[in-house]
């Protein structure tokens, strides 16, 4: 599920701040948002902002300066295979292009630099790059360039973080990764290295392969002719990757100041046509200065920190465009432990939170809408299910979610035997019930929001307190969640999702990222069914997703909380900029068509 991470929400300011979709870490804290309306309908909300700049005739020329809001200098690993942060993806965006374009629900189509064909009988995926797709040095992108990323990913010497056992579905991948084979036997180049086609042999084809971000095959090319002389163990720090990268996107790097700024000029060999702009400059700005950066018009494009919306919303000569990213914040319940020896999650029948009535009651007692209204300027909204609207059919509209309802919450607890003893409720077995909540520090509003929820839970007689008595620092937050620390009964976190909707890697039995450690035969079956051969039938797969969402809603092992707009401020003379997936190349802005209005 990786190549797309952090890209589909390709705002040039991935900075945490508002949404809890954090740059270097997808698991982040929650920072809610508001949606004044009660049903939290994402589509309705999205109409508040346009998804693209107004269409106007474009003139040639001009330069655009972009603020990259981050509080650490960017790493600047200009390689899709090796880079690990969303900031780096943002920095590389004008030059980098993915092989495939998608429709609005991330299904791969034929409009991009390459086409993809599945052959279920032969169990192959054939990728052909279009003629005329050239690197910025004028060389045609060829078959070897399509194959080379797999070597970069799988060769242990490169230390690529993005190697994934999912890739081992490719024949011969594992052998290559372990150093037992010199080449990846499952990747074939029928017309030779100089051809334009590779055929990838899989052990099994999966329905998710039609979608971008699926992780079964790679969606970028690497310039073999340019990188071949760099030894794998030097690749990450080589000048070819860090100083003078080569891409086939609309722009190429002209100048790079390490960690601070990148200047781009048009790639004259760009296959879609000549870019309108003469220059793009991306420079780092401290998030504290983001608002001023927008208000003072020092930049033509800058991301908006949702927490500072009130200060920027009335700025003149600015257009705002927004996108609802594939992301959500959630409340998760710790129901077991990760068994490292077996490599699987083991649910603990006796764990405190192992009672769905209790979990549902906790969900119903959260006044998410009120919090969003009070704290988030209408930029966040409640989500009802774990499959965001952006996934189209797969999203189940009928899930009602946990509408704030204290009465219902109390009834659920009464029925389940959580009786009140004095001020607080006790467990059905009579033992006291103290629930420890783990939440990470974040923006200034994090503390009052969490305290508010604790007050709500108090109203239904639940004694909830923070793990360690306060909000946890980010690193220690990760540490506690990943290692199933004691004193954590539930936690608030957020996920930024890949654009292929399968859920196995997040909630599966063998996934260490299933931090809830929720494992049931039903859940396992549904998750497996999402990727089964039967699911090649779209309607069947959609049904499985809906079933899983109902199951998830009923079991309430996770309470979905909020999602927020990802807003970008643009100079109002800029046109051709869009956040729609179908108007982007796999999350990359189509920079060649962005320009100034005549």
């Amino acid at each position, binding site marked *: 599920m990786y190549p797309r991470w952090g890209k589909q929400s390709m705002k040039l300011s991935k900075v945490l701040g508002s949404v809890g979709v954090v740059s270097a870490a997808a698991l982040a804290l929650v920072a809610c948002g508001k949606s004044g309306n009660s049903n939290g309908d994402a589509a309705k909300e999205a109409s508040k902002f346009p998804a693209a700049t107004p269409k106007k005739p474009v003139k040639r020329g001009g330069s655009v300066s972009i603020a990259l809001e981050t509080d650490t200098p960017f790493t600047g690993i200009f390689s899709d295979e090796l880079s*690990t942060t969303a900031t780096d993806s943002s920095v590389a965006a004008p030059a980098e292009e993915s092989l495939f374009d998608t429709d609005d629900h991330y299904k791969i189509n034929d409009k991009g630099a390459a086409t993809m064909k599945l052959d279920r009988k032969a169990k192959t995926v054939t990728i052909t790059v279009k003629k005329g797709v050239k690197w910025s040095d004028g060389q045609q992108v060829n078959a070897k360039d399509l194959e080379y990323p797999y070597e970069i990913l799988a060769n242990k010497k490169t230390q690529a973080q993005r190697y994934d056992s999912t890739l081992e579905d490719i024949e011969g991948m594992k052998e290559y990764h372990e150093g037992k084979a010199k080449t990846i036997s499952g990747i074939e180049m029928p017309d030779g290295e100089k051809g334009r086609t590779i055929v990838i042999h899989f052990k099994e084809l999966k329905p998710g392969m039609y979608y971008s971000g699926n992780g079964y095959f790679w969606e970028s090319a690497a310039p073999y002719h340019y990188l071949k002389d760099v030894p794998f163990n030097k690749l990450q720090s080589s000048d070819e990757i860090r100083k003078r990268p080569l891409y086939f996107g609309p722009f190429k790097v002209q100048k790079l100041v390490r960690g601070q*700024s990148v200047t781009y000029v048009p790639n004259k060999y760009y296959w879609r046509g000549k870019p309108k702009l003469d220059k793009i400059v991306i420079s780092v700005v401290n998030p504290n200065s983001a608002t001023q950066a927008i208000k*003072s018009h020092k930049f033509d494009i800058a991301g908006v920190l949702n927490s500072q919306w009130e200060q920027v919303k009335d700025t003149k000569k600015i257009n705002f465009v927004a996108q609802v990213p594939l992301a959500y914040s959630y409340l998760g319940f710790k129901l077991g432990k990760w068994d490292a020896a077996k490599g699987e999650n083991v649910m603990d029948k006796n764990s405190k939170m192992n009672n769905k009535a209790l979990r549902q009651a906790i969900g119903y007692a959260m006044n998410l809408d009120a919090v969003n209204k009070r704290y988030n300027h209408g930029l966040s909204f409640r989500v009802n299910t774990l499959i965001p609207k952006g996934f189209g059919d797969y999203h189940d509209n009928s899930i009602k979610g946990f509408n704030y309802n204290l009465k219902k919450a109390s009834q659920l607890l009464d029925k389940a035997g959580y009786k009140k003893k004095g001020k607080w409720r006790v467990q059905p077995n009579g033992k006291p019930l103290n629930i420890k909540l783990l939440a990470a520090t974040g923006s200034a509003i994090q503390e009052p929001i969490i305290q508010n929820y604790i007050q709500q839970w108090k109203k239904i007689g639940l004694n909830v307190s923070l793990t360690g008595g306060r909000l946890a620092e980010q690193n220690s937050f990760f540490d506690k969640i990943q290692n199933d620390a004691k004193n954590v009964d539930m936690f608030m976190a957020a996920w930024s999702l890949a654009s292929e909707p399968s859920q196995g890697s997040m909630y599966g039995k063998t996934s260490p990222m299933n931090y809830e450690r929720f494992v049931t035969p039903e859940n396992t079956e549904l998750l497996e069914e999402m990727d089964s051969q039967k699911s090649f039938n779209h309607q069947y797969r959609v049904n499985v997703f809906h079933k899983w969402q109902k199951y998830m809603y009923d079991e309430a092992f996770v309470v979905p909380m909020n999602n927020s707009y990802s807003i970008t401020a643009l100079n109002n003379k800029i046109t051709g900029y869009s956040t729609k997936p179908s108007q982007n190349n796999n999350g990359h802005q189509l920079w060649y068509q962005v320009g100034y209005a005549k």
Partner: protein
Amino acid sequence: MWKTILRRLLIMIPQLIILSLLVFLLAKMMPGDPFSGSINPNTDPKQIEALRRAAGLYDPWYVQYFRWVGNLFHGDLGTSYIQHVPVTSLIADRASNTFWLSLLTTILTYSIAIPLGITSGRHQDQWQDTSVRIFNYITLATPGFVFYILGLWLFGFTLGWFPISGSVSASASGFWGVLGSRIYHMILPAILYALITTTGTVQYLRTGIVDNKVEDYVRTARSKGVPENIVFHKHILRNSLLPIAAFLGNTITGLLSGSMIIESVFSYPGMGKLFLDSIGQRDYTTLTALILIFGILTLIGNLLSDIIMSIIDPRIRIQ
């Protein structure tokens, strides 16, 4: 005196060993590691585990420690877990940024503080002195980050006189262009930083002058008919500069350690910012290297101060 210096240098060795051990262990004791932040739905936890193992993070601490020390002796500070470049090159990059910023700051600090201190001491309890003291109380009471952000807002954003972040503009080219742009980027942070770090120097100097004015040797000089100007510059001022000289060693080595706050506010890629970032990102290699460097700098700074003092003040010459 050479013996003393040699002895001091030898004492530094056990100090550094203890420092390095502490640094190393404390870094390891922080929750999380460089990889824990990279876990997301798009990375395979197995691969992360494999990388942790390959990086030796699962070895016992003493194995890791001695491996680190062993590499130190080869001049190898390791490779940054986050930046994926050798720590030496990373630090060299940042140290030069910090050095120039600090140098400018120090020059500005002294050129503001010394005249103010002299004025204040010379005109004790007159209006000049009162104004300087008010200025001093304000700078002492203003928290750095508030002052910097205010300055950034006023001169960077509102008036637009100075750049708001970074150490060099993306469009600068050519030797002079880059040099000019670098200096332009340093001016605002350096002035702001200098303005509120003058407090100590002004105060020491003022007190020194006030105290020395009534010393016997001053009275003697005056009674011998030495002109007032010479009395002041030769007798009073020189002796009053001693406390400032006492800090000179640390000021010199401090040129390399940078300031976390000003560098963060201005997104200025220097040593202080690097230090802060590497803590947040658990970039052990960079972090331990930096603390070690800071430690060495402090020790050397103290030694330098002592040497300077013994040169200019014969009374405390070390035996």
